[in-house]
């Protein structure tokens, strides 16, 4: 590590548990790790290992039960709901496994959604949307609804929505999990491009070694803890 300025995400002693009746269910246990700026990190692990929960915590979608999460120098676990929502809008782009596009909106309207939270004018928003769609190679399909697009195309729209605000951090939860190999490869190419050419820091949850091979670093989670190697 070249210095603290290079650290974008710093997680210290994060524990997450849920209450199920009287029982405490531990999902993450005393997690410590850092993500450097410009890194493409793959979070791997079997189902139930806590990878999506960790991703949600880094993205401010959930709060840790203990520990601290600092992103770009900001202690996000101490922000209130409103501050956290504003922070997400400005700094985080999410890519979901099932794309999570609004079925009633066209591709361009879907991509525009995060920009509605900014003070940009309609013309400025349109310009940003066009740029994002062009970046994922789907400008020509901007008027199409999600149902008129293939899975791979929908995921590219999802990525365009994630990058349209030019966020600091791109969080991808199994982005290729619902795609065939060819479409999955296209998405991974795109993510790699965003990382290499545009310097986006990406954290990608996956259980697919083929996908994690594209990352610059892989972190393994097993039963809520970081391990150096996946147990057989």
């Amino acid at each position, binding site marked *: 590590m070249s210095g603290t300025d290079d650290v974008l995400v710093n997680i210290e002693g994060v524990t997450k548990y849920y209450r199920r009746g009287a029982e405490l269910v531990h999902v993450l246990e005393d997690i410590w790790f850092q993500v450097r700026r410009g890194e493409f990190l793959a979070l791997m692990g079997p189902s139930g290992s806590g990878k999506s929960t960790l991703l949600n915590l880094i993205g401010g979608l959930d709060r840790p039960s203990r520990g601290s999460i600092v992103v770009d120098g900001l202690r996000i676990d101490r922000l209130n709901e409103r501050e956290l929502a504003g922070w*997400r809008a400005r700094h985080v782009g999410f890519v979901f496994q099932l794309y999570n596009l609004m079925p009633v909106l066209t591709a361009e309207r879907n991509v525009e959604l995060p920009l509605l939270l900014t003070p940009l004018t309609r013309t400025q928003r349109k310009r940003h949307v066009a740029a994002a769609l062009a970046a994922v190679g789907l400008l020509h399909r901007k008027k199409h609804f999600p149902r008129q697009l293939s899975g791979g195309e929908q995921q590219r729209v999802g990525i365009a929505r994630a990058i349209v605000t030019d966020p600091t951090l791109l969080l991808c939860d199994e982005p290729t999990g619902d795609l065939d190999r060819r479409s999955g490869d296209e998405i991974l190419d795109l993510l790699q491009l965003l990382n290499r050419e545009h310097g986006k820091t990406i954290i990608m949850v996956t259980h697919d070694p083929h996908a994690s091979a594209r990352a610059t670093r892989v972190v393994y989670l097993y039963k809520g803890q970081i391990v150096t190697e996946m147990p057989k």
Partner: protein
Amino acid sequence: MKYAPLVLSNLRRKRLRTALTLLSITVAFILFGYLAAIRVGLGAGVQVAGADRLFVRHRVSIAQPLPISYLDRIKRVPGVRAAIHQSWFGGIYQEAKNFFPQMAVDPEPFLEMYPEFILPEEQKLAWLRTRNGAIVGRSTANRFGFKVGDHIPLQATIWRRQDGGVMWDFEIVGIYDGADRGTDTSQFFFWYEYLEEGRAFGKGLVGWYVVKVDNPEQAAEVAKLIDDEFLNSSDEVKAETERAFISGWVNQIGDIGLIMRAILTAVFFTILLVAGNTIAQSVRERTQELGVLKALGFTNRQVLFLVFAESCMLSCLGGFLGLGIALLLISAGDPTGGALPVFYVPARDIVYGACISVGLGLVTGFFPALRAMRLEIAESLRQA
């Protein structure tokens, strides 16, 4: 405004469901408009009745006549500025269904008493010099095509003529308009002296008196003085404000306001359930999408606002559409052919209707919006 496409697109999600809900809201507001117009029609005169006018009738019943000699005694009661008498004629024009009220009056004091009846000066002069002259309101004139100079035969149902006949001939010498929209212009007025001279019986009797008081705030005291003036006489009277009299007359068929409120409450309660269910179902179906919006940075309040905007847009769309259709239909006039001489939706009720449609949106959206606001992002995304 930038959220409008999002809100609208959500309404388009299940087009049939939205259309049916919209239709039910629209129908409810058409009914609202009609009931408002009917209430105005039934209460015609109540709103415009002069606060400074008292109505003096026989204590037993309005159908019991009073002696004309009471007029001077009423005029002498302290606090009375002017008094006139009126007598119900109850004639039939061609057919019994062609009903319109006909009253015998003394023209000059009558017109002074009712400044809300606007009659051109030359027509007023013509009425004063024409013994069998009559003036008719604009709505009745339009209804039957009466014109100045027409001779109108009315068949008496009460006042037989001295020669045994029942047909009375009247010459239309004037057509009056109302000073405002709520003025009843369905009535027909003619000379009392013409009736008095021609009728076979009932000489020296009038139907009731209308009294103008000096000070409207003392109307109740003056009414009491008038009642007292004729206490223990053969024809005791009951004086009350014109407004109270007309209200009482209307309410003979029941408390119109209460009936209207009961109907509208039932209708809007049903609509509340229908529209509320639509919005609630729509929000339930979109749990995951709402979670995505929050993940993208929408705050809880913004999500709350979006659901409220959706429910308000639906109810306002239906409400305004319903009110618009009602206004359009009602503008065609009295659908009963004369039973509702004044038939329109007052501006106040249009404002009420608009407020109700917004209120309906807020109430129907309340629980779904609250649910949407409280959604946990991680939890709602897990529902994918």
